[in-house]
């Protein structure tokens, strides 16, 4: 077993187990902390794929900002362990799990079909890829510039919307 494969299996185990824990654990705060763990695992997986910059951004944006926001909101609510964690109805629950299973089957089938194509075009390289941050930036600001600008507008709209939503009907800064 080489170091690379060991790393992959370990990270995959961490990511999947903590991902599963998010869904299963009934205390939402533990769920959020497990999700943070999963994000760090995903970030490390990005690093094993040679996407170092994306890995760092994943760490800063997801683990460092978005998830901290979740944890903060949960702690502000101070929810205890939920008595009823999952939605009611045994039959509908089974149906939902069956749906998920079928989806998993579809995905596996789709992947097994695409893999031959992918392995043909790009040989799996074992050498560590050089730092691609510069090329990534160039691509983002040339080919994908329209999407980038659109996202900027979207973020502005969302920032305004969220401020509006949070201020309405008494927030922490409401004028009574």
């Amino acid at each position, binding site marked *: 077993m080489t170091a690379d494969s060991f790393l992959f299996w370990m990270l995959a185990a961490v990511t*999947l187990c903590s991902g599963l824990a998010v869904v299963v654990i009934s205390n939402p705060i533990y769920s959020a902390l497990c999700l943070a763990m999963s994000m760090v695992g995903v970030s490390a997986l990005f690093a094993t794929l040679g996407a170092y910059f*994306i890995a760092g951004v994943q760490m800063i944006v997801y683990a460092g900002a978005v998830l901290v926001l979740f944890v903060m*909101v949960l702690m502000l609510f101070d*929810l205890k362990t939920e008595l009823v964690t999952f*939605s009611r109805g045994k039959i509908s629950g089974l149906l939902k799990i069956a749906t998920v299973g079928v989806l998993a089957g579809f995905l596996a089938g789709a992947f097994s079909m695409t893999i031959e194509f992918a392995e043909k075009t790009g040989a799996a390289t074992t050498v560590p890829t050089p730092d691609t941050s510069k090329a990534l930036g160039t691509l983002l600001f040339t080919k994908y510039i329209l999407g980038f600008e659109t996202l900027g507008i*979207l973020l502005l709209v969302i920032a305004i919307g969220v401020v509006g939503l949070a201020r309405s009907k008494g927030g922490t800064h409401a004028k009574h």
Partner: protein
Amino acid sequence: MPSIDIVTHIGLNHYLVLSALLFVTGMAGVLLRRNVIVLLMSIELMLNAVNISFVAFSKYLDKLDGQVLVFFVMTIAAAEAAVGLAIAVSIFKRYKEVNIRFFEHLKG
């Protein structure tokens, strides 16, 4: 021996299967949980699963476009989390619980 090869030789399919499993886990969370914030977290999990497959394809096809898409997904995820949490907070202020079932009061 293929059984050994699967363990030691990590390729695109490993990452894709991992991504699929993570996506399915997230989807199960969305379908089964009742707490709105856990629902949002499960959606984040699904988006992350998609990100893994983007980056994996970007490496094995030797194109950077996948990584650019990861940027876009992250931005959308952050925006979605902000809006979702704002709605959850306003639901919580009214009902002191963040059950998904209270969202039916949003109409009108």
